[in-house]
């Protein structure tokens, strides 16, 4: 399948591809040396490569602990200045560059290095080739009556030809769907060049603590367009985004006793799903959307149950005196990972979706909040180390863990739908905010600002929802 999409590449000779160290995110370069980007052309390539090396080293705040690569080879893609140079065109270029860089499948050069000017009708392929560019994105963003029309071309630089031309309708930049429409262009480019599905059209839900209450909010994965999902004026917490994207389920005190409710992900009236005496909490919706794993205390202490949402039947999975909670489904829906303090201290366990074959997965210190990767091969969780919480991942079939964070308290990991990123809450900046990082702990990015934000849940791909 992947090969089909890569047809334009054919059998490329390895020799023309520049060494990766010649490439640096233009974003990092700009932030370190803003005056340099326009003068890139004046620089000889060898100094540029050295510069790139040093910038890369300083831009990386936390050491990457490579477990193994999910993305084999990054593609060098440049995003030319989009024409005409209006605000909408610049926003489109910025979002495309962010999304492609974030996807981990590209080295992105954003903007035009200066020497590369089209002399004829097409781009100056040979000049772009000097920069090691494999693909070049060019285009125009023109106003229409109802918004903008983005005509985006993708060029294969070594073959010196355009391989894709598409036109996208964008709403007015002030409209709610403007950025999401651009994220869709990013996903189309990612699909075109890698055959993979991008995650630029995702959001992150979370709980916001204000004056003793909590409400559920959501935000685009890049930190734009924060909006409120619930307005229940009570404690609503631990949201979980349904795999079809339509609903967010959470625990709320709206009836006085903590119950499980679900609300439309875009905001709207919350409906009760599970309202037993005692706690109804820690919802985790199964990948097929038909079942809900949750924690109830109606039978004495915290145990894990599975609710068949359609038939309303309830099945109890755990039977012991410990606190069993925080269930998370494996991507095929056959297993559930959870936390239990049955041994005295909270630890990570897994079991079949029917409750059989319980086994302990992690054997470190106190551990909480496991989350099974959508790729199925790893489980992220939180472990207390030296009095602070850190995010750890382990192979789903057991084995040694890899610590991904080191600053502040870091909690509640939630995987992106492609399994390449993890959202989490962290107090590294003082208050608790939502951050994302790569699967190996690299590229930590702050998503919310201001503190009081906890319990992230990464949405599935939302498309035009």
């Amino acid at each position, binding site marked *: 399948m992947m090969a089909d999409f890569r047809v334009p590449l054919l059998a490329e000779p390895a020799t023309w591809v520049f060494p990766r160290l010649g490439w640096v995110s233009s974003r990092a370069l700009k932030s370190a040396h803003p005056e340099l980007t326009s003068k890139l052309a004046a620089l000889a390539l060898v100094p540029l490569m050295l510069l790139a090396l040093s910038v890369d080293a300083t831009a990386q705040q936390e050491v990457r602990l490579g477990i193994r690569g999910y993305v084999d080879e990054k593609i060098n893609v440049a995003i030319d200045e989009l024409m005409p140079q209006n605000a909408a065109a610049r926003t489109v270029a910025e979002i495309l560059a962010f999304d492609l860089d974030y996807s981990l499948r590209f080295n992105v050069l954003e903007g035009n290095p200066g020497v590369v000017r089209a002399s004829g009708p097409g781009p100056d392929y040979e000049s772009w080739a000097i920069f090691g560019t494999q693909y070049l994105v060019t285009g125009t963003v023109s106003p229409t009556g109802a918004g903008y029309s983005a005509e985006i071309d993708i060029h294969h630089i070594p073959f010196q030809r355009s391989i894709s031309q598409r036109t996208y309708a964008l709403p007015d930049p002030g409209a709610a769907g403007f950025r999401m429409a651009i994220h869709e262009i990013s996903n189309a480019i990612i699909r075109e060049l890698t055959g993979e599905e991008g995650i630029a059209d995702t959001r992150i839900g979370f709980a916001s603590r204000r004056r003793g209450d909590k409400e559920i909010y959501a935000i685009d994965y890049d930190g734009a367009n924060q909006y409120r999902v619930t307005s229940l004026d009570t404690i609503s917490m631990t949201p979980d985004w349904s795999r079809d994207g339509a609903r967010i389920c959470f*625990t709320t005190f709206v009836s006085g006793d903590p119950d499980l409710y679900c609300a439309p992900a875009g905001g709207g009236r919350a409906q009760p799903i599970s309202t037993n005496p005692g706690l109804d909490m820690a919802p985790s919706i199964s990948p097929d959307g038909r079942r809900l794993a949750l924690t109830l205390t109606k039978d004495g202490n915290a145990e894990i149950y599975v609710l068949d949402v359609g038939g309303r039947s309830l099945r109890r999975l755990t039977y012991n005196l410990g606190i069993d909670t925080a269930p998370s489904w494996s991507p095929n829906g056959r297993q559930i990972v959870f936390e239990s303090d049955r041994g005295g201290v909270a630890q990570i366990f897994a079991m079949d979706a029917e409750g059989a074959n319980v086994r302990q997965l992690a054997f470190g210190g106190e551990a909480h909040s496991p989350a099974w990767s959508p790729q199925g091969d790893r489980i992220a969780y939180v472990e207390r180390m030296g009095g602070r919480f850190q995010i750890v991942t382990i192979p789903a079939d057991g084995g040694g863990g890899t610590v991904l964070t080191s600053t502040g308290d870091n909690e509640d990991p939630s995987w992106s739908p492609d399994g390449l990123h993890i959202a989490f809450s962290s107090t590294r900046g003082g208050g608790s905010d939502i951050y994302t990082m790569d699967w190996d702990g690299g590229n930590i990015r702050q998503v919310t600002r201001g503190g009081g934000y*906890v319990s992230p849940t990464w949405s599935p791909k939302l498309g035009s929802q």
Partner: protein
Amino acid sequence: MLGRRLTLLTVTALALGLAVGCSRKQPPATDDRPRAEPPPATENAGDADAARRAEEEARLAREAAYGSIQDMIFFDFDRSDLREDARQTLQTKAEALRQFPDIRIRIEGHADERGTVEYNLALGERRADAARAYLIDLGIDSDRMTTISYGEERPAVDGHNEAAWSQNRRDEFVIIGG
């Protein structure tokens, strides 16, 4: 519409619950009723004084009972077993509850901010259950007590140190009837 009304009711109930919980030095509003009644008209001033004194004593006794019933108990980190000081506090509570059998309470379990939201909610419930079970052992009718956990969501003391945490690992006792 119904949901909205329920929300308001819940918020009001919570606010009242918190107000009662925070102001244990003052008699609850229900106690104002007997006090507000005019003294009975009688020719024997001594009898009237005695009646007033008895009434006042009853009011004070009830006030004292409210006070001891609302005394919080505290827990060690990540524990829900009752410490010796908590047992003594609960024994005093049990006496007051036996003395005033009309009083009903809600036991609210809380946790400090360390630990995850979900785990702390379960831990708070365990703490509320531990107090309830001990009061039942001491002869208090289980129908007179409900439990709820707020986990780490409603700290009594703000702060990110042991002084605050030790005050936040607690059970609160809210009088909901009587």
